[in-house]
């Protein structure tokens, strides 16, 4: 997989945000279910080498969610939060906090599900409590984004290649 061709689009419109966007070949109710039903979440959620060992979802406003992930060499990661808005199949908003969090404050996670002709674009906005927190996440090995400057960087690389190709 190459970063440039990957269908996952990542950008940073503000200094506290990371936005992920990705098209899925399925209608919104199905995608919404995949994001909210534990028996479905355990089948896809997590990084390479990690799996969801516990997945608690109390799907109501004010209800709590809690994921326990197990990773390589016995690594364990716990993330949890509270649901703020539940509007199936269009919108899901919750807070997120890791047990072992290295930056201050809760993150507000908003998923928007937008269906056109049976295909659904999921846009996830992660709003961090501080700009420093966002930058910390961008530096992690499991970071969720590359940032707007890096998207430009990819464009720059393409244009550089083109320019060189055109030179006599």
């Amino acid at each position, binding site marked *: 997989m190459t970063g440039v061709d990957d269908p*996952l689009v990542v950008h940073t419109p503000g200094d506290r945000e990371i936005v992920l966007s990705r098209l899925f070949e399925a209608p919104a109710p199905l995608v919404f279910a995949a994001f909210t039903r534990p028996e479905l979440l355990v089948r896809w959620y997590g990084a*390479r080498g990690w799996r969801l060992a516990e997945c608690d979802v109390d799907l109501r406003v004010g209800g709590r969610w809690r994921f326990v992930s197990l990773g390589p060499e016995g690594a364990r990661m716990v993330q949890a939060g509270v649901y703020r808005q539940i509007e199936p199949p269009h919108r899901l908003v919750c807070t997120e906090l890791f047990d072992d969090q290295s930056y201050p404050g809760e993150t507000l996670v908003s998923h928007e599900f937008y269906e056109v002709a049976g295909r659904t674009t999921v846009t996830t906005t992660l709003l961090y409590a501080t700009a420093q927190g966002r930058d910390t996440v961008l530096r992690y090995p499991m*970071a969720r984004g590359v940032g707007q400057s890096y998207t430009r960087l990819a464009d720059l690389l393409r*244009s550089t290649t083109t320019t060189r190709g055109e030179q006599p």
Partner: protein
Amino acid sequence: MGTELLDATFAALADPTRRAILARLAAGEATVTELAQPFQMSQPAISKHLKVLERAGLVSRGRDAQRRPCRLEARPLREATAWLAGYRDYWAESYQRLDALLDELQAVDQTDAERRGARPDGTGR
């Protein structure tokens, strides 16, 4: 790629003027005077940005005594994007698994609908 060089690369890219300079240099070599023109910035200010870019290995300067053109060095950029592509795996791989799951769920939906047959309202559900 070493962490220090990577830090220098990303620090250099964190500034919009420096990204604009790189974009300009992607179109071909340019002198400091030529680079300063579109930015409404003094040559010393541009030179400061260039020093940061040079330290990060993103720009090199020609040896021509009359004209020391700045040149884009793409290698650190390529290494930086390769490194970032690795970072993206966290969600990219997760979402690939979701693709497979959604395919499977849709196949199940289809089968269920066929088994039940279309309802009088024609919705199939």
